[in-house]
């Protein structure tokens, strides 16, 4: 028995031992990131991915007037979500509001972003100010417009005291104020994205165009503007998607007829407790906005978006 041990001479043993530890170091190296990732990936899987799959299934269930929802495969909710003219009207209206909002964000945001990029001294302060709204509560910023446009708000008070009007005019609670609130909420996203894009453009390019005889306006239109389009597109996508997914702004600044699609979801889930229908409606919203993101991703890629977020 003892002689059996002699087969493993010392040098060879060390060799094997080293191989084993090398292997385990390598295996550890390979295992370690997964240990680190297990908690965060597990959380996102359990709290987002699985729930999304779950509501796909749930959207084919049926609500019963008494007792729990009826499991099974019933296309009824989807049929209603896709064919009901009221839902279709709200969906169209939501996309319209989001589009107008995005347009105004671009209109207000582009010149401001351009100014910040090219201004010399106070760039840092302007940028800090631009970041500030991200830290100010969304609901505060939304309701702040009631102080301005309400019947006893700043504007009515001013008009009354100057005698332009004799009684307060109703300016709030319509589609225009919903759009106003959304533009106010989303403008910083637009400006920031355009700024990131403009800041990355070599100013020599514009100078080169000017030195070759282009006017400032021409060099802007033909050099700077096209180069900044990715930022404009990223900002536009963010504004559109965030705008189309909101239900708080219409509740605070809109009238009873200014519901957006997310309001339908909220109504179905919270007020009517029709969870299968709510699932179908929220998935429809996800599909429509997801299609938009997919088109964007196909042509421009996601990297521009994370650049603006980071």
């Amino acid at each position: 028995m003892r002689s059996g041990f002699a087969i493993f001479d010392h040098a060879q043993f060390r060799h094997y031992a080293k191989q084993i530890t090398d292997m385990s170091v390598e295996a550890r190296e390979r295992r370690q990131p997964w240990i680190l990732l297990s908690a965060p990936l597990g959380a996102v899987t359990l709290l987002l991915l699985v729930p999304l799959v779950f509501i796909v299934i749930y959207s084919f269930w049926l609500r019963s007037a008494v007792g729990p929802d009826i499991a099974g495969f019933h296309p009824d909710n989807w049929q209603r979500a896709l064919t009901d003219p009221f839902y279709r009207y709200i969906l169209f209206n939501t996309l319209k509001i989001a589009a107008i909002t995005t347009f105004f964000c671009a209109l207000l945001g582009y010149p401001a972003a351009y100014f910040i990029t090219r201004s010399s001294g106070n760039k840092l302060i302007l940028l800090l100010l631009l970041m500030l709204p991200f830290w100010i509560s969304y609901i505060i910023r939304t309701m702040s417009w009631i102080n301005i446009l309400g019947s006893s708000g700043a504007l009515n008070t001013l008009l009354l005291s100057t005698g332009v009007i004799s009684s307060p005019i109703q300016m709030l609670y319509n589609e225009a104020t919903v759009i106003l609130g959304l533009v106010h909420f989303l403008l910083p996203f637009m400006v920031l994205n355009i700024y990131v894009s403009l800041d990355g453009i070599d100013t020599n390019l514009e100078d080169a165009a000017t030195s070759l005889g282009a006017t400032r306006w021409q060099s802007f239109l033909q050099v700077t503007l096209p180069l900044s389009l990715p930022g404009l597109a990223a900002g536009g996508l963010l504004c559109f998607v965030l705008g189309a997914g909101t239900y708080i702004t219409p509740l605070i600044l809109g009238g009873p007829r200014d519901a957006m699609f997310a309001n339908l979801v909220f109504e179905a889930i919270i007020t009517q407790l029709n969870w299968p229908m709510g699932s179908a409606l929220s998935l429809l919203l996800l599909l429509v906005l997801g299609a938009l993101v997919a088109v964007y991703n196909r042509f421009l890629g996601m990297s521009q978006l994370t650049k603006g977020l980071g």
Partner: protein
Amino acid sequence: MGWAAIRAYTVLVYLFMFLPVAVVVLLSFNQNQFGSFPMTGVSLRWFEALWNNDAVMRAFRTSLILGLLTALISTTLGVLASLALVRYNVPGKNLITTILIAPILVPEVVLAVALLLFLNWLGIGKSFALLLAGHVIFTLPFVILVVQARLVSIRRDVEEAALSLGASPVQTFFSVTLPLLMPAVAAGALFAFTISFDDITGTLFWKPGGVETVPTQIFSMLRNSISPEINALGTVMIVITVGLPLLGAAIVRSIAMKRGM
């Protein structure tokens, strides 16, 4: 368009962004009993009313606890994920990143519905636990983006030096990487706290009846009428969510300067 015109335009855009908020702060100090224009004098009566309003104070405590727990959990998860993604060669890195960022790619309403229905099915109904789970999941991407960006700029050699001198990976993390990463960890935590503290879209879906956070409390107060108390509450929120990051930045800077000397 001349430069002066662009400047004037930008000033107007900034005014558009800040004037309404400035009016909120201004009106919160209004003495007028209806809290509307014209201002009749400066007073702190609305802040006093807030202090004595039990519902508001309860909402504050809820928001504070929720925000702190969210920041703690979300930052821990975010640091783990960032370490794995930046420091190791993980196969399928792009897919993993996309999955981890997914909570901000999905509209918050959809995320709120999915989480509510699924956890309810598992037996966790509308509760503080559900609120916390929701807040963690949609603040996580922001923490990861902030921490990752910083981690990329910390040179690997410093960690390798520690490792080659015999420190274990865990020791290396706590005595080398984490101190260098601290500004980003703090920024990520603050970010998570502020987002949680501000959130209303998901919170309205997840909160149990009778429990209010500050934003949902403001929302239900708005249902009645706009009172100067809401403006005062808004001012307090602005001070917290804007003041806290500024304070944090100042502290980080002063620590960095001490180290520098």
